[in-house]
Structures are given as C-alpha cells and as structure tokens.
C-alpha cells in the first residue's frame, strides 16, 4: 500500500471552546475516494474545512492534534496557507461562481499563484474542464458570465476551478445537495476519472451516493469518527452498532 497523503492524528476542532470534531485519527491515501457520512452536526464539514484551514476565518476556532500533509503539519507556523489551499482544493455545497466570466473564474486561482502566461492558462483551463466533464458544454462560450450556466454546470465549473490548480486532494462538501439526479450522475462520473490524479474526500448526506461513489467510507457521529473501512464492507457488515443504526435509518 502507498504512503498516506494526509495523516490526521488526535485532531480536535473547537468553536468558542465547544468541540465539533473530537480526537480524530484518519488517513487519506493517494488515488482513493473517501466518503464521509453522518447525520447533521456530526463534524463532517468542520473536519473538511480543517483540511484546508478554512476554519481559520472563524474567530472562535481553535484546534489541537495534527494534520500531516506529505508528512508536514499543515498548522505549523511556517506553512503558507494560500499555497496549502491550492494543494487541498475545496468545492462547496452551493455552487458559487464569482460574478465574472467562466474563463476568469477558472484562471483566478492560477493568477493568484502567479501564473500569467496565456498559453499555460488556456491549456490548464481546457484540461480542467475536461476532467470536470464540462468542456464540450462551455468551450464556445468561455467568456460569457458564469452565472448563466445551469446549477449542475455551475457546480462542475466550481470543481474545474479547483482542478486547474492540480491539487493533491480534492475535498467536496455535499457537492450535489442542490442538484438533480442527472447532474449528480455527471459529477459522480467525473470523480471516478479524477481519482487517477488526486485523492478525493466527499462529504455527503446521501448514503447511496457514498455507496456508489467511494472506495472507503468514514462514519461520523457527534464529532466522533465511529468507523472507517472499505465502502462495500462498511455498508454490508459494519463493525459498530451505531453505524448499523444510522444505515438502517435510526438517526434519520
């Protein structure tokens, strides 16, 4: 087995002193799709936002423990947070295209990283749109405003906007919660192809989606990691009673 890309060791995240994620240990491997399931306020999103330090924006956020990315703690003082966020790219529940053209949305992250060369930008945009299965739909209107796209297209644009940065890990926070089944299917297809190039962490409320679109699944409950294992095994033979209760619908 390959060395893990991310190692989470005894990680606790608190908001205003109240823990949202408690003493978490978890590993994320290259080229895998890890789904995180669990009921509301189980700490899934907090964990996800800890991976790219987006929680830092919240003044009440404190943490303990470690999150190692390629062996280095991402909370170390000398870490360039901007650089980290390019390596661990995040997609949000609601697609938020910035109020610019499709093209400007896609190259924004690259420009922030200091890449100005037009040919490089164009190549990376085309590649990323390809991975996000959006190229054919937008190739002729890259300079139209991004908000004219449909909801599903906007979400794939948001995925592509992260993929142009060629991240090590792609983290997605319920990316299909507002989408119809066809759009959801397209995004899941894209994730299958994408695991060749990055690790994927997918938080979802939809256990069926986790079963379809992941290699391993982790079950969170009230800030604790209850169980993690190969998806097929976790869904058929969970080792913990709580996991089973959740999967059969005990927690709603």
């Amino acid at each position, binding site marked *: 087995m390959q060395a893990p890309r991310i190692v989470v060791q005894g990680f606790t995240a608190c908001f205003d002193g109240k823990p949202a994620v408690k003493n978490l240990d978890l590993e994320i491997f290259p080229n895998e799709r890890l789904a995180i399931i669990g009921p509301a306020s189980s700490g899934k999103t907090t964990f996800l936002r800890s991976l790219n330090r987006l929680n830092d924006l919240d003044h009440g956020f404190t943490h303990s423990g470690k999150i190692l990315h390629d062996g280095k703690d991402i909370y170390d003082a000398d870490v360039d947070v*901007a650089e980290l966020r390019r390596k661990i790219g995040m997609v*949000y529940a609601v697609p938020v295209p910035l109020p610019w053209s499709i093209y400007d949305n896609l190259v924004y992250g690259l420009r*922030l990283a200091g890449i100005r060369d037009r040919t490089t930008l164009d190549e990376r945009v085309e590649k990323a749109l390809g991975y996000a299965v959006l190229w054919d739909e937008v190739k002729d209107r890259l300079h139209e405003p991004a908000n004219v796209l449909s909801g599903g297209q906007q979400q794939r644009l948001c995925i592509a*906007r992260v993929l142009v940065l060629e991240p090590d890990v792609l983290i997605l926070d319920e990316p299909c919660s507002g989408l119809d089944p066809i759009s959801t299917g397209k995004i899941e297809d894209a994730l299958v192809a994408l695991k060749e190039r990055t690790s994927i962490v997918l938080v979802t409320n939809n256990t069926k989606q986790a079963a379809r679109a992941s290699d391993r699944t982790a079950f969170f409950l009230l800030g604790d990691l209850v169980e993690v294992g190969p998806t097929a095994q976790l869904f058929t033979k969970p080792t913990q009673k709580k996991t089973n209760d959740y999967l059969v619908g005990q927690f709603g």
Partner: protein
Amino acid sequence: MRVSPATSQRVAVGFMWALAAITFAVLVFILAFILAHGLPHVTWSFLTQSPTSMGREGGIFPMILGTILVAGLAVLVAAPIGVATAVYLTEYTREGRLTAVIRFGADCLAGVPSIIFGLFGFVFFAIALGMGLSVLSGSLTLALMVLPTIIRTSEEAIRAVPYAYREVSFGLGSTRWQTVIHVVLRSAIPGISTGIVLSLGRSISETAAVMLTAGSALRLPRSLFDSSRTLALHFYILAREGISMTNAYATASVLIIAILALNVLSYWLMRRFVAKVGR
C-alpha cells in the same frame, strides 16, 4: 358621530398623498424656477470668460475651474481614506470596542455642521498649517466633511458582497488582501462609486465651509495655494449683494445641472450595483 375605519383610512391616505404631491411639486418648482430664469443666459461665452466688475458682467470660468479643483481634490483625498477605513471595518477586524469607536467617530463627524468645518478649516489648514485661504485649505476641509459619507456607503457596498465569494477566493489560495482587491472591491465598486459621486455633489454644493477656507478671489487660480471662489459661493455673493440677478440665475443653473448630472450618474451606478450583487 363615529367615523368608520374605512373612511378614516381614505382621509389619512389622501392627506399623505397630498403631502407627497406637494414635496414633488416643490422639487419640480425649484428646478424649473432656477432653470427657466437662468438657462437662457448660460451661453458659451458665459461659461468660458472671466467675470468683470465683480461678476456683474462677463462669465464664470474661474469659478467653474475653482469648483472642479476644490471639489475634485476633496474627493480625491477623501475617497482612498474612506474606502480604506471601510475595508478595515469590514474585512480586517471583528466587531468590538475599536470598531464601535470608529463608527461612533464617523457618525459624529457626519453630524457636524458645515459652518463648523469651515471654522476648523480656517484655524487649522489656513492659519495653523499656513495654507492661507486657498484651494488646498478648502479641499482638505471638504475632504474631512465628506469622509463619513464615503465610509458609510463603502461599508454598505462591501457588506452587500456575498460572504461566499470570500470563502471561494480563500479556498483558491488567495491572501486576505488579494481577496479584498480582486473579489470584494471589484464587486463593490459601483456601490462605492455611488458614495463618491454623492460626495462630489455635496462638495460642489457646499458654501459655508468653502467661504471660510477657500476665500472668494475672482481670478483664475494658478496654484493650489491660490484663493478661489466656487460656483456656489459666487452664486451666493451675486444674489445676496444684489450684483446681478441674471448672472446669479445663470450660475445657479450651471450648479443645478451639475448636481442633476451627478444624481443621475449615482442612480445609474446604484442600479448596476444592485444588478450585480443582488442576483
């Protein structure tokens, strides 16, 4: 006799509509009155010549230039300070004692009457800093006066930019400053410009503060340290001292048209802003 609720509603609403109609009529009357008396005298030579015999004859070119210099410089100074203050309040700190103090200060500054700004500008800029009655003293005084407007409108425009934009930008690897420049200000610019345009209008209209700081020299200002008379002050002097009613009306017409143009501009900017962030 008891009046039925429906009747009292009809009477009350009718009365309020009458008040609205009167207000609107007053506005139209003021504009029409000035323009009808003044516009016929606004000729090319009136706009491009210097006044003679205290303004009884000749044009208003030095006052147009003086107004542009004083008001333009005021906004040029106030806008960066005001926008920076708004950015600090919204993006660089959280609500607390410090922001409360800054807001309270801005609110108080907004309430200070223009004549007090004039007194202050006179003793501070003109005398203490030795700038004399000059374009510079006048514009710095006005800058201080319009600062609260720019802070307030910029803050509102910045707050109207969805929080999610900032999260997305941070998520793509931007620093706070890059987010402020590329995402927040870029979206808020039409809203911020509205405040700046309104401030320009206020600077052009202001009379009391300018009278005490920029002076009332009739000649063309040659440097920022020259005294210069603005259009509003020229109009006041012409009318009050009965120098020339025709020229007073004509000067007021120019003033009104400038204000109208700025109002239309700010209205247009506001609509663009709402269309942009208020999807």
